[in-house]
């Protein structure tokens, strides 16, 4: 069975290497591969993350997300369990958050 993910390039940790190639369908498919079904609330976060990336060239931090949407930090962790910045970035086709070392 073919999937929309067949032609998408990922790094070794499952993050898209080219954020510009992302589409909503790809987002849905990445979420499904992580065992998630996306709700309207997930999309508030994903849409914000995409917009933030287009404007700033980087993934938003949890603070950026909660300060600029009606999603609280607690809800953010419920939507994206075990690390929202990382999982939200993955589903949104953005890079993994890094420290300097």
């Amino acid at each position, binding site marked *: 069975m073919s999937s929309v993910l067949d032609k998408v390039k990922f790094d070794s940790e499952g993050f898209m290497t080219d954020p510009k190639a992302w589409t909503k369908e790809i987002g849905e498919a990445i979420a499904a591969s992580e065992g998630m079904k996306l709700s309207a609330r997930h999309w508030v976060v994903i849409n914000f993350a995409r917009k933030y990336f287009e404007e700033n060239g980087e993934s938003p931090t949890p603070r950026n997300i909660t300060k600029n949407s009606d999603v609280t930090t607690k809800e953010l962790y419920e939507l994206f369990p075990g690390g929202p910045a990382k999982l939200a970035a993955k589903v949104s086709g953005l890079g*993994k*958050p890094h420290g300097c*070392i």
Partner: protein
Amino acid sequence: MKTFLILGAGTAGTLMARTMARKLDLREWKIIIVDRDEKHYYQPGFLFIPFGMYKPSDVVKTKTSFLPRHVEVIWSDIEKIEPEENRVTLTRGKQVIQYDELVIATGVEIRPDQTEGMLGAGWQKNIFDFYTYAGSVKLAEALKRFEGGRLVVNITEMPVKCPVAPLEFIFLADWYLRKRGIRNKTELIYSTPLPDAFTKPRANAKLGDMFKLRGITLEAEYAIGSVDAGKNIISSYDGREIPYDLLVSVPTNMGVEAIERSGIGDDLNYIQVDKGTLQSKRWPNVWGVGDANNIPASKAGSVTHFQHELVAANILAHIAGKTPEEIFDGHSLCYIESGRGKAILIDFNYDYEPVEGTYPIPGIGPFQLLKETTINHWGKLIFKPMYWGMMKGINVPLPSKMSKAGKKL
């Protein structure tokens, strides 16, 4: 007469004042610098104070001893910055300053108030920061009294100034507790919102076992939600609880409140600048230098040092009606103390992660990049006299841009 206004007389503001005093025609320009605190702190030294390696007096001098003559100094907080009007209002006497060029170098503050319960009954009793002078001095007293138990280091959220300092703290704590003979009675726990202690692949491959070798527990992807100072427990948003006897916190780092009051920064009150030229993205005669800006680099003094000559050149170009062309490459240089009198040196920029090699002379050194050596520790110690010298205007002969020679890129 035109006005060149600098807000903040820390590392970045002082370097900018000195450089501009040398480069501007002072018959045409008046340079004014504003700060609310007359003391200048050598902030990297805060790390050593808790372990008795530096005395508190080693890291403090007066700001006036570093500011060049011909620069007017005003001691005041800032009420409001209004870039649309080219105007800054100070709190002292509500003084209004009209400027032609503005450098914002107001730095970073720690904000324990941003985490629920952090400023409760435990604050500076068994919860401490070491990113402030007062915090590190009080932590030194607490560590002296410490007789074992659970010592938890927590990073609240990124970015923080000097992202390697929490690692250095836990390595030095391990060493310090061994010397005191109570390491076997202490559990060391390192909790971070990042996915690992070392997140860059090369650094992780070289240094990833440092925690295991020292018996330090890593709690990764840990986003602290609250502190319960009654039960001595921190909880993450996803419900993970970590009990502590001594909590060493790196609280949320934010730009100053004057930036927020003025509505001119990002969500953490940082000034948004072009990461190459450091010119404001909204107002061409406003520049964000040092840790007050939002560039994706380490908020360290070395970064400021590498920036200041380039920014000065860009400001002069802007004054002359030309396009700023000097591009900062994100160059950072950090010594990471690892305990037992050793340190690791890392050298990196926007494009290259920390790699192996030698510094500053390709193929020779004497410092070894991404390796734990004794001479790297001496390098860290030499930073202090070098820093005070640099603040007095002695040139530090390290090139601004990262060199690729002698490195395994």
